[in-house]
């Protein structure tokens, strides 16, 4: 998991690449580096975040350059392992996103032939291989073309060489976008670094090798020239900036009403493919937060439509015998989650029809799945998913609405207003109760069980407070032993089927001395008297209760993390999308 940026054109490459890499930090940020074609190949690389240490990098000379922000997979994060990597002579430089699976044997052979390795990375084999080919025939394009067949695994690479005023790019199973400007080209892991300069993009296919020169681009597939369509990207620059918000996460939380509304409007129930509407059974594969949206969907689908739904972690899916028929839905915000991609491929081989739900146009998952539904959340930069989560739910709720006999059109059309409303709520009391806790429990029943799971995930990932979500009834089967006055419980207690049994669960928890923060609805007469802190959501139908309580949990996690001074947008040890298994 890494981010790469390349530039060739009329401007100074280094400062532009530095800015681009900053935008890609969500893909990894343990080290970074830049190489430019100045006086020979000029390189700077460091351990640490580019946003903190970029000052020297921007001074490199040259109008052509490549850069990399790293998420360590092979070799610890340090200066030597940071990209770009160079060949023995220092005349060729490469940046790489992905994993070269056969690097160990390639490296052994190269070392036997006298190559000197300076890092522990898999990437370095690429540049030494290119060096060998380049020595035979000094043409960078044919050198890269000769090397690519030797590589197994996933890669998006950018290569430059001293004396060759061009960038060679190649892609297989890792994302790479080409931005087409006027007399300049960009290459990047996604559109965020590019969008400031051009809206025209080419999404490459696996196996493509590209040569970018100042004035022209050539794309080769299996050594034959091919053309790929230039697509217009409608994300505005404002979308990829933090604006005046303290954190991307807060910005993205506040964008949720619009994200939900846009997504609902973009998925017309009449346009949904037959195979979704007529599915006899649905299997969902997802990871992380997307797994929780899947679980909410399972509750809503089974209750409203009587269609059995199965949900598996994408990373575990391959260990189960595949479903023989039915529909498999993969949910991934980035469209690059390796496990979800693998699970969908596996489902396809097993003969299932596949549907992907993703936020990123042109991402890898769109090429794997038979059909793709796009969330209209816009780019999400914060590592903790917020607006993409709400947008995923918009799609899944729209699917339930389309299949179900009972129609929820009005509810879904109104939901963004309810989300806007809860953004005004003051949670300071609850934040005070949570900020000093060692452990927090989230409990709910029915669809509020996955809501609890998500609440706990948000809390632990950004505030670093240990938090667990449980189905309220399960607490008695063990976790009760952990309850004490130091463990706040966040209880989701909405009017409906689960209300009365939740009330008795809450009373049991209170009896064990745990402070209870209840998320309920306005006008509840019983709940405020038995809990310590009562958060009243406006009265609303079930679908909206789910959405609004999720937003409250996000805000609670955000403000708790803020009080504790955490690095909210980039929590320690986490990356935005997980592109390794």
């Amino acid at each position: 998991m890494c981010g790469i940026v390349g530039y060739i054109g009329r401007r100074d490459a280094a400062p532009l690449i530095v800015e681009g890499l900053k935008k890609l930090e969500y893909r990894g940020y343990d080290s970074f580096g830049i190489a430019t074609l100045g006086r020979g190949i000029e390189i700077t690389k460091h351990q640490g975040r580019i946003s903190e240490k970029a000052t020297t990098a921007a001074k490199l000379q040259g109008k052509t350059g490549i850069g990399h922000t790293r998420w360590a997979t092979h070799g610890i994060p340090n200066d030597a392992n940071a990209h770009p990597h160079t060949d023995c002579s220092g005349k060729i430089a490469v940046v790489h996103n992905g994993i070269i699976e056969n690097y160990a044997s390639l490296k052994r052979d190269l070392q036997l032939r006298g190559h000197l390795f300076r890092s522990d990375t898999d990437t370095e084999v690429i540049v030494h291989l290119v060096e060998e080919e380049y020595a035979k025939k000094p043409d960078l394009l044919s050198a890269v073309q000769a090397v690519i067949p030797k590589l197994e695994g996933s890669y998006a690479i950018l290569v430059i060489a001293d004396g060759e005023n061009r960038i060679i790019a190649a892609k297989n199973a890792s994302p790479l976008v080409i931005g087409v400007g006027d007399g300049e080209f960009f290459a990047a892991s996604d559109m965020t670094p590019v969008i400031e300069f051009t809206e025209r993009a080419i999404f490459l296919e696996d196996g493509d090798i590209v040569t970018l020169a100042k004035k022209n681009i050539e794309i080769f597939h299996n050594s034959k020239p091919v053309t790929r369509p230039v697509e217009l990207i409608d994300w505005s620059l404002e979308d990829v900036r933090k604006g005046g918000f303290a954190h991307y996460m807060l910005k993205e939380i506040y964008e949720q009403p619009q994200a939900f509304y846009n997504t609902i409007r973009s998925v017309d129930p009449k346009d949904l493919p037959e195979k979704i509407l007529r599915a006899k059974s649905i299997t969902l594969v997802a990871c992380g937060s997307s797994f929780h949206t899947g679980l909410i969907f399972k509750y809503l689908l089974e209750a409203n439509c009587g269609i059995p739904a199965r949900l598996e972690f994408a990373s575990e899916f391959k260990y189960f015998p595949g479903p023989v028929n039915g529909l498999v839905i993969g949910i991934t915000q980035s469209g690059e989650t390796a496990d979800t991609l693998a699970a969908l491929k596996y489902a396809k081989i097993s003969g299932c029809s596949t549907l992907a739900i993703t936020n990123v146009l042109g991402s890898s998952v769109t090429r794997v799945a038979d059909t793709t539904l796009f969330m209209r959340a816009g780019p999400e930069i914060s590592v903790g998913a917020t607006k993409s989560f709400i947008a995923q739910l918009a799609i899944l709720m729209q699917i339930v609405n389309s299949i179900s006999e009972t129609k929820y059109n009005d509810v879904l059309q109104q939901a963004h207003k309810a989300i806007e409303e809860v953004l005004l709520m003051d949670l300071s009391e609850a934040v005070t109760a949570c900020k000093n806790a060692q452990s927090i429990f989230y409990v709910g029943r029915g669809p509020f069980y996955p809501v609890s799971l998500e609440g706990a995930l948000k809390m632990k990932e950004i505030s670093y407070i240990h938090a667990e979500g449980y189905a309220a009834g399960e607490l008695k089967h063990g976790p009760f032993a952990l309850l004490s006055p130091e463990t706040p419980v966040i209880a989701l207690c909405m009017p409906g089927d689960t209300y009365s049994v939740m009330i008795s669960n809450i009373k049991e928890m209170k009896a064990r001395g745990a402070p209870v923060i209840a998320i309920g609805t306005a006008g509840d007469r019983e709940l405020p008297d038995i809990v310590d802190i009562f958060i009243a959501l406006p009265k609303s139908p079930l679908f909206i209760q789910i959405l609004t309580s999720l937003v409250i949990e996000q805000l609670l996690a955000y403000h708790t993390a803020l009080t504790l001074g955490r690095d909210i947008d980039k929590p320690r040890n986490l990356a935005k999308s997980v592109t390794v298994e």
Partner: protein
Amino acid sequence: MQAVILAAGEGKRVFPLTRNRPKAMIPVANHPIIEYVIDALQKNGIREIIVVVGYRKEQVTRFLNGLEVPVEVVVQNKQLGTAHALQCAEPKIKGDFLVLPGDNYIDPQSIARVMDIPNAILVKEHPNPSNFGVVLLNNGLVTDIVEKPEHAPSFMVSTGIYSLKKNFFSSIRGNDITDAISGMIRAGERITAVPADDWQDAIFAWDLLKMNRRLLSSLPPAREGTVSRQTIIHGPVRVGKGTTIGPNTVITGPVVIGNDCTIGPNCCIMPDTSIGSRVNLDPFTILGEAIIMDDTSIGSHSRIIDTVVGERCTLADHTSVSTMAGLMEIEGCTIRSEFGAVLGDNVTSGPFTVYKNCVIGNNVTIEGQESIISRNIPDGSMVI
């Protein structure tokens, strides 16, 4: 040149419309007031714009992020006055600069007139000067400035728009810019008064209707939605994307209608009306001299005149508003006013409800039928 727009204040006197936005973000002719200020600066070639946000800063910032023009955002954590707000932006100020309130309309020509004069105030006559900083003039120079005096010595007031030098910050003493200005005058500095052409401030919520009338008059017409062929349109009318207007609806401009609205059939929209996005007007309803904000629904056979309706309101059929004059107490002052009604966000009322010269808070529910409301109702009330 740089410009600092002050948009941190809540604007308590425009209750109940400032629940989820500061006064600068209230939509007038379907755009937040601050957008007109930014536009006017743009027209004068001023590109470096700093906005001080505070109250409901997330909502303001979200809006500013969506604008085409890049705007820098500075946060004032506690609203301690205009001078304090300006000090929050001090680290960003490089030279001469303008200060403008984000919640007043100003025309671009007036800005052009003041921007090149260092140490100048835009001034304007106002019939109720006691609500403003009153300025005393002599030969085009300001001799004194008094903030909100009980007995105003003149009808000339400060618009809150200043052209200042970077060293102004060293003159700041009290919490308000006016304090600093009067200090400068006492210290013998020359402060020039420049008359403004068109400046609009809404002190109370019903004043927004006048501002709305003014801003609608300069809006170019446009037609993007689906308008039935049997609709009759006179004058300048803007219809947003995705809006559907049913047959036999009569619209007399100036009128602006946002996106994704459903109107009619058989509605009548009279001049000086702004309708937000996703608004529903059921058949046989008449609107005029009104601001209707986003996501509001109005039932059939209603008559909504001289009224501001907040977001997400649901008014049942046969709702009626009568314009009347009366005395009203807002923030401790008693004011004479004449208007129909001001409704906050998320007000729900039953069929045949009648509103007469009243201010209804946010999240108010008026249950049952045929209620007659002629008094102010606080936030969150349930009227049975």
